[in-house]
């Protein structure tokens, strides 16, 4: 192997390591309805196509694009309990200094239970509060798995008044709560905060079609990875996203699109910058 190729390969390995932690974390997007638990015996199939791009550093011209299709199936086991599982399918394209590398595979399987804590429906408003507890199992491909068991508790609030709706969610991900990741590294824990506001209007005289523009604000704080109880340098970051999109509903089918823009990023020197994320999704309830 020529010295130049060796150098490229080394750079790519470095890029892989530096990208790994940022790539697994993403802002949820279109988080509306989260506090309102679905009806008993209701199935919800949901999928999205997410396109995430990561910026380049001028010196080494590194670039990464990521495509993710999370497939979600949820079921209303009881009126106050919903179970959900999510399996992401992923692809990552990286390039640097003329060399490129691509990977395909499955992400980690996520299983979650959502419990209704409070629900009040009146003529004028609806208020819902729900708690979730989820576990992410290290089932994914090597390139896309954290290789740790992760625990994710969360709290969701939803409020509706007329056509106006607002949702707030707070979730904490305890990465590696039961084991350590590759090479004994504990991935950093993550705090997520999402706020969404939407205005829904019916289209036509038919009550089966509606359109809702959505505005979302998402904050992610990811703490540093740890090795032997010590923080690992150049890991951990915080990001604030401002997103705008819409939700189009035809009876039991919901189509959604969202553009997430990173408004502020606090990252360390080797992590590559996050650019915009595009999201196209659908939900079908039956």
């Amino acid at each position, binding site marked *: 192997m020529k010295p130049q190729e060796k150098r490229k390969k080394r750079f790519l390995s470095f890029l892989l390591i530096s990208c790994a932690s940022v790539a697994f974390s993403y802002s949820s997007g279109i988080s509306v*309805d989260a506090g*309102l*638990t*679905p*009806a*008993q*015996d*209701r199935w919800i*199939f949901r*999928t999205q*196509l997410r396109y995430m791009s990561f910026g380049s550093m001028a010196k080494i011209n590194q670039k990464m694009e990521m*495509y993710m*299709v999370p*497939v979600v199936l949820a079921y*209303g086991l009881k*009126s106050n309990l919903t179970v959900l599982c999510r399996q992401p*399918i992923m*692809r990552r*394209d990286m390039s640097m200094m003329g060399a490129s590398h691509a990977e*395909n595979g499955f992400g980690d399987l996520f299983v979650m239970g959502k419990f*209704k804590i409070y*629900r009040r*429906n*009146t*003529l004028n408003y*609806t208020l*819902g509060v729900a708690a979730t507890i989820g576990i992410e199992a290290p089932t994914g491909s090597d390139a896309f798995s954290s290789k740790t068991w992760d625990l994710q508790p969360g709290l969701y609030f939803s409020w*509706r008044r007329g056509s106006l*709706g607002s949702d707030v969610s707070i979730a904490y991900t305890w990465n590696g709560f039961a084991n350590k990741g590759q090479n004994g590294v504990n991935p950093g824990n993550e705090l997520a905060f999402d706020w969404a506001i939407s205005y*829904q209007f*019916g289209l036509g005289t038919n*009550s*089966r*079609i*509606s359109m*809702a523009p959505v505005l979302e604000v998402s904050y992610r704080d990811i703490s540093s990875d740890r090795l032997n109880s010590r923080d690992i340098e150049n890991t951990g970051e915080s990001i604030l996203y401002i997103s705008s999109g819409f939700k189009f*509903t*035809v*009876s*039991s*089918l*919901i189509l959604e699109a969202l553009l997430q823009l990173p408004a502020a990023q606090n990252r360390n020197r080797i992590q590559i910058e996050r650019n915009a994320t595009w999201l*196209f999704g*659908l*939900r*079908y*309830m*039956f």
Partner: protein
Amino acid sequence: MRKIGYTFSLILLITFFSSCLSERAKPALDNTEKIEIRIYEVFGMDCPGCQGGVEKLVNKIPGVLDSKANWKKKQIVVRIWRGQDASDEAIFDAIRRANFTPGKRTK
């Protein structure tokens, strides 16, 4: 990327067509001697997607022919075979299990 794009497009198409099929109109039954129409208030529905959840549970009640919820009007119209035992309480219970709150029976 192409494979992911194709997979996503295929899922989109299948879901869209199954949604259209499930929306097929039921045969019209205008025999008012055999069918009773009841209307109930329902609070908490906030989008067209909510309607299907409550309709599914109400339709399972023995004696119910079909139902049609309307989130804008905050109501559900239920068609019931006359002489069958589909009580108001059974319908209220189905509305509650859909996580909505029943109001009055208006018809």
